[in-house]
Each structure stands twice: as structure tokens, then as C-alpha cells.
């Protein structure tokens, strides 16, 4: 394992020190592993998200004006604990309530559930929105359901803008839920990631193969295939996403994220192919992000997220945001 770290055990706390040093507009609570926005938010709904670490800039990089009020950082790939979430809710609630944005993983769901109960007991109004957008996981009531991946970023941005407008908790939750319902994602990997504490790749992948339908935790994908061209990968991903949801009805927000080990020149090459694959299916792209937004440590690969966007979503998407990971309008 080759990593720019001190020791596996301190990867998260070291990164938090760096975040604190690099970003004077957030406060880092080292005990509770929280990244908290300093932006004024009086009377506004506060968005709290969080999850295992290793997906940077998500979530800590999305803390700031117009997006998250706080992010809870769990250990690498391990959901944070209810204490952290409760501390976050307590720190950011200004009376208008707190929206938990939760990716659909058993650990995240259970821990946020407990935190919501605890926060409720302390008189904080808490609502939760779940993101479960990964089309490579079969959706079934018999299983844990779909994973939450890239749509989370778009939910956080859009709901954050609604909160910044002063909308009440019920509205912000409804908007977040709409984005979540309108989003679909899929990812592929050329290499595994290496969890620092584990010290070796989570799975082995021969030189000429790729994993199709991977998540963001180094778990293997739905199947292994021969390494394909960017063109064919784009066809496969876009095909699977478009088969799951009709994206021709409204323009989409497209997010092509690297998984941490893929350089931008490859992502742009992929996006060229994706853009064609979308066009050929009659899907219109209104807004685009290409870069590292939701990653999986040092994994090479990418994930595509599409969100079908009505006028309200687009307007909120375009509203000012000022975070380490997404910034425009101020």
C-alpha cells in the first residue's frame, strides 16, 4: 500500500486537521469529527449529512453557504455514530429544524435513525431524506435496497439552496425527496481501492478486466467484464440508467465523478462519450459537473449520475453556493 499518510489509524484525524487549516470558513470539531459551516443561517433549516470517510469532497467539502450546515465524518467507509449526528444537529439547529441527508446503507440508516430519535428527545425537529439511486443494485423490498451514491451531491446542493431561501423544513424535505426520487447513478471501476487499515486492495482485478456496477466502498460490482473502450462503457452506463428511469421528459443535471484515482483528462474523454450517448437517447443535459465529487479512496473509475430537473430544481441548482467542493455565485 502506497499512500500519503502518517499511519492508517490517523488518516481521518489527519485529514480533518488539514481541512481545518485549509478552510477558514468551516469549524472542525475534532472530538465529534464534524465539519461545521460558519456561514450565517439564522432561522434557516440546517442540512446535516455524513457517512463513512473516503468519498471526499463528499460530505465535508460540501459544507458552507447554500449547501450543508454540517457533515459528520465516520471512519473510512464506516458510517458515523449517532453521537456525532446528534452533536451536529445540536450545533447547527437554529430553531427551524434539521434535515438529515442519508445515503441508503444499513449502517448509515440505523445510525441516523438513532440520532433522529435522540435529537427528537432533545426537542430538535428532525426530518430525514434517503438517497438510494444506484441502478446497478436490484431494487427489492426483500433486500437492503439500492445504495445511495452521486444523487446525494445534487440533493445536498438543491436542498441547501432551498434552505438558504428560508423555506420551512417540510418544503426543504420535499425538494430533497424530489431530487432523490429523480436521480439515478451507476459506476464502473478499473481498479479496487485500498482501505488504509486493510493495507491491500479490497479486490483484485486483472489488467484486462473491469468491475461494472460498483459502489463507493470498494465492494466488487455486479459483474466483471473485459475492459471496454470509453465509448462502450458510456453506452453501458447510460443504457442502464436510461432503462431505469425516463430522462427524456425534462432536462437533466449530469454529474460525472471520478472515483479518486482517475485523472481529469480521462473523465473528460468519458464525458464526451456520455454526452453522445445521452443525445442519441433524446436526453437533454441542462447542467454538467465533471470531476471528483463522490469518490472511493484511490479507486480508478467513474460514476455517472443523472437527475431529471424541473424549473425549481434548476433554479436552486444555479443559486449561489460557497463550499470547498462546489462554488459559484459568490
Amino acid at each position, binding site marked *: 500500500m502506497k499512500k500519503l499518510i502518517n499511519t492508517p489509524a490517523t488518516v481521518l484525524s489527519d485529514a480533518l486537521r488539514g481541512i481545518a487549516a485549509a478552510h477558514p470558513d468551516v469549524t472542525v470539531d475534532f472530538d465529534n469529527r464534524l465539519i461545521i459551516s460558519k456561514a450565517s443561517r439564522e432561522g434557516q433549516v440546517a442540512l446535516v449529512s455524513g457517512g*463513512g470517510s473516503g468519498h471526499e469532497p463528499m460530505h465535508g467539502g460540501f459544507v458552507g453557504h447554500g449547501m450543508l450546515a454540517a457533515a459528520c465524518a*465516520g*471512519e*473510512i*467507509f*464506516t*458510517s*458515523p*455514530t*449517532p*453521537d456525532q449526528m446528534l452533536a451536529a444537529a445540536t450545533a447547527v439547529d437554529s430553531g427551524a429544524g434539521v434535515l438529515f441527508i442519508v445515503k441508503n*446503507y*444499513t*449502517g448509515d440508516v*440505523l*445510525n441516523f*435513525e*438513532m440520532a433522529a430519535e435522540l435529537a427528537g428527545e432533545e426537542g430538535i425537529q428532525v426530518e430525514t431524506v434517503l438517497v438510494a439511486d*444506484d441502478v*446497478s*443494485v*436490484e431494487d427489492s423490498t*426483500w*433486500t*437492503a435496497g439500492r*445504495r445511495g451514491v452521486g444523487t446525494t451531491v445534487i440533493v445536498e446542493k438543491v436542498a441547501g439552496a432551498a434552505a438558504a431561501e428560508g423555506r420551512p423544513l417540510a418544503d426543504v424535505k420535499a425538494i430533497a425527496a424530489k431530487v432523490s426520487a429523480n436521480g439515478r447513478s451507476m459506476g464502473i471501476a478499473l481498479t479496487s481501492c485500498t*482501505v488504509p*487499515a*486493510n493495507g491491500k486492495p*479490497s*479486490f483484485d482485478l486483472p489488467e484486462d478486466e473491469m468491475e461494472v456496477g460498483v*459502489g463507493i*466502498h*470498494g*465492494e*466488487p460490482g*455486479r*459483474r466483471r467484464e473485459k475492459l471496454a473502450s470509453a465509448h462502450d462503457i458510456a453506452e453501458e452506463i447510460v443504457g442502464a440508467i436510461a432503462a431505469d428511469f425516463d430522462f427524456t421528459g425534462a432536462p437533466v443535471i449530469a454529474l460525472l465523478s471520478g472515483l479518486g484515482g482517475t485523472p481529469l483528462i480521462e473523465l473528460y474523454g468519458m464525458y464526451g462519450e456520455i454526452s453522445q450517448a445521452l443525445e442519441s437517447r433524446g436526453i437533454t443535459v441542462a447542467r454538467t459537473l465533471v470531476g471528483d465529487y463522490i469518490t472511493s479512496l484511490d479507486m480508478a473509475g467513474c460514476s455517472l449520475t443523472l437527475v431529471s430537473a424541473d424549473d425549481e430544481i434548476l433554479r436552486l441548482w444555479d443559486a449561489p453556493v460557497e463550499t470547498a467542493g462546489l462554488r459559484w455565485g459568490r
Partner: protein
Amino acid sequence: MTDAVTLATVDAWLRRFAAETAEQAAWLTELDSAIGDADHGTNLARGMAAVVEKLDAAPPADIPALLKAVGMTLISKVGGASGSLYGSFFLEAGKAAAGADDLDGRALEAALRAGVGSIVARGKAEPGDKTMLDALLPAVDALQAALTSGSALGDAVSAASDAAAAGRDATEPLVARKGRASYLGERSAGHLDPGAASSAILVKTLADTVTAA
């Protein structure tokens, strides 16, 4: 060997479990790496190390308090699915043991069953979903059956441990329906479930502690 579980026994059990998870952490993480996210051993070892620290710093006065302390510590230190599930297990077991001093076989079974019940309530998994329940449910059932047939406590917990190990092994061919492994669909078959593996360790360390007491 005794016929009731004392506070000292429970304390010794959890310290043994902590030592064992530390020792088996790499293997548990290895199992989680095949069908999950490669953190189960690290997480549990971290949580149990915190439990031992807690027990050292403030030794609980009775079994219910100890179980509660363990549950709270796991919930606040582990994270992930297993932190919340094992945490609930101990919290609920502690509640079920409320008021008790030592636990005889029946009381032990009741506490464990209550703990397992809270895992079911939280996680909504069923037997055969390839989770820790596939080790824990057979263990509690075996404990009950042994006690019913008149076995001594030591023999009964040993039977529970054997059942947990068998349940763990039986997860190998299963296709997961809960937890991260479920994302893999058919590809989850052919691997032991890491949570079932750690649960089997939990029951085995109980058996080892009770039979050594």
C-alpha cells in the same frame, strides 16, 4: 464451572471477546473485503478496545449496567451497521437483565434473546439473509434447547457456540439480502458473512469464559 453467570464472568467474557476481535480483526476485515467494504474487523476491534477502556475506567456495578455500558460504547465508537446492531444487542440484553444479580441459564437465554430481538427489530433481516443473525439465532435456540433438555450451563453455552459456528458456516452458500453484501446479488454466494463470523466469536468467547469460570 458454575451454574450462573456472574458480573465477573460477563466482564471476563467481553474482555475475551475484545482480545479475540483484536486477534481476528484482519480475518474479519478480509471476509468483509470479499463481499463488503473491508472494515468489519477494524471497526469491531476499535469498538471493543474502547469497551475495555470503559470497563477499566469505570467498572460497572452489576450485569445490566455492564451490558448497557458495552452497548453505549459500541454505538458511539463503532459506526457502520455492526456498531449499531451490536450496540442495540447489548443495550437490549442489559434491559432484559434488569434487576438480576447473577444470571442463571434461563436468564442468560432471555437476555441474549432480547438482544437478538433488537437486531431483528433494527435491521429487519430474516434467517437466511446472510447476516449475523444466521449465527446468533441458532445459538440462542441451541442454548434454549440444551437448557430445556436439562444440560448444565457450561454444556448449554458450548452447544450454543457450536450452533453459532454451524450457522456462520451455513452463510457461505447464501445470497445476501441484507447489508452491503446484498449489493452483490449472486456474487455474494461463496463467502462467509463477516458479521456471522464475529457473532460466532462472540458466542464462542462466552462459552469459553463460562466453562473456564
